[in-house]
């Protein structure tokens, strides 16, 4: 093996491992690095539906400054977003649009249900409001409050970051079959009524 500048003689690397090199190394698993970087550049999609969006804007503004977590860019395009913050009440008419935005987001993607209206319908227990956005999309973290303050939303975001980094969300998704507890069964093969006999006519 040649001598690589900056690293040293790598001829004995197969026998001694990294010990014989001139410089020190920090090793990590690729999975941990990926989770670490995912947690620290979690771009949210704008899905402000009601008054919770005001608090979401306040969280991104200077006094609370979501840029400290690397998530100051609220993406209008779902293809560039990792996290959907459903802020506000979801009406029955908005639910298919919400699901479409969620489907357009790239994997891996996460959802924070911000506020009681998005989480469970809140005080709007009526025919017009979806009673919990987790009937439509899989929700990772619920932020309570009406509306949640910026610190409540940041607590939810930090909870989500911790879960991304510990891999708990990935495990839960496998148990949950990927979302919203909606299981689509493949259509059963239709048994033909009679075997087709060729050449009988």
């Amino acid at each position: 093996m040649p001598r690589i500048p900056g690293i040293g003689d790598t001829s004995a690397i197969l026998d001694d491992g990294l010990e014989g090199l001139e410089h020190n190394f920090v090793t990590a698993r690729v999975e941990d690095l990926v989770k670490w970087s995912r947690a620290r550049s979690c771009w949210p999609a704008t899905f402000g539906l009601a008054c919770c969006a005001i608090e979401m804007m306040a969280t991104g503004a200077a006094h609370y400054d979501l840029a400290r977590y690397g998530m100051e860019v609220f993406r209008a395009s779902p293809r560039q977003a990792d996290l959907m913050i459903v802020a506000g009440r979801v009406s029955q008419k908005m639910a298919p649009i919400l699901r479409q935005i969620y489907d357009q987001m790239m994997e891996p993607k996460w959802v924070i249900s911000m506020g009681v209206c998005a989480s469970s319908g809140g005080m709007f227990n009526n025919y017009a409001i979806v009673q919990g956005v987790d009937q439509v999309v899989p929700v990772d973290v619920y932020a309570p409050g009406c509306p949640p303050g910026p610190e409540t939303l940041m607590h939810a975001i930090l909870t989500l970051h911790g879960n991304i980094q510990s891999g708990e969300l990935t495990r839960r998704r496998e148990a949950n079959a990927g979302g919203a507890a909606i299981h689509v069964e493949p259509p059963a093969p239709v048994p033909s009524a009679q075997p087709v006999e060729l050449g009988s006519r």
Partner: protein
Amino acid sequence: MGYFRGFAVTFKKMFERRVTTSYPEQKRDKPARLHGRHVLNRYEDGMEKCIGCELCAGVCPANCIYVRGADNPPDDPVSPGERYGFVYEINYLRCIHCDLCVEACPTEAITESKLFEFSFTNRSDAVYTKDELVVDASTGRPQHLPWEDWRPGEDEHTSAWMRATSPSGDATYTGRVSWSGELGHGVRAPEVGQAGGAAASDDGPDDGPDDGEGPA
């Protein structure tokens, strides 16, 4: 020179104090009447204040409170009255923190603390049972659940809203103590919101934007 004049605001702001509160390290001061997570209080002798009258559940506009009352066991009573609340649940995915339950409660059993930093990863965590809501039987402080972000000293402010508000909405009664003592606190003084209240409270309403001790 017009180029630099355009940056005048930028350069001026560069040397001002930052307004950012870096949340996980420090919290912004809360106003005296903030509505946060509820607590169920106890009297000074450790008895629960809740009598299971279900007025809070009746007044709740979001129908997030579920209460069932039962007769007190005569040999080991839970509350000093005839009845006590043996089931008390609040769904925090419905609660809008309007404090109507605190107003409706005849015994000041339910008050709101100033904790508002909590979030859940599943729905069952969000339904607080009575064991989670009631204050600790020895210290009288709220219980710290793993998904809540309590800081030292925050659990002392459990009924500030009630003590900052005039009893029955009558402004002429300001400054009078009309509430009973709490376990671990005793009979507390009125808050700064009332005339005759504490002059300088440690949790005053000073919530100005320059309050945060952000990095200079």
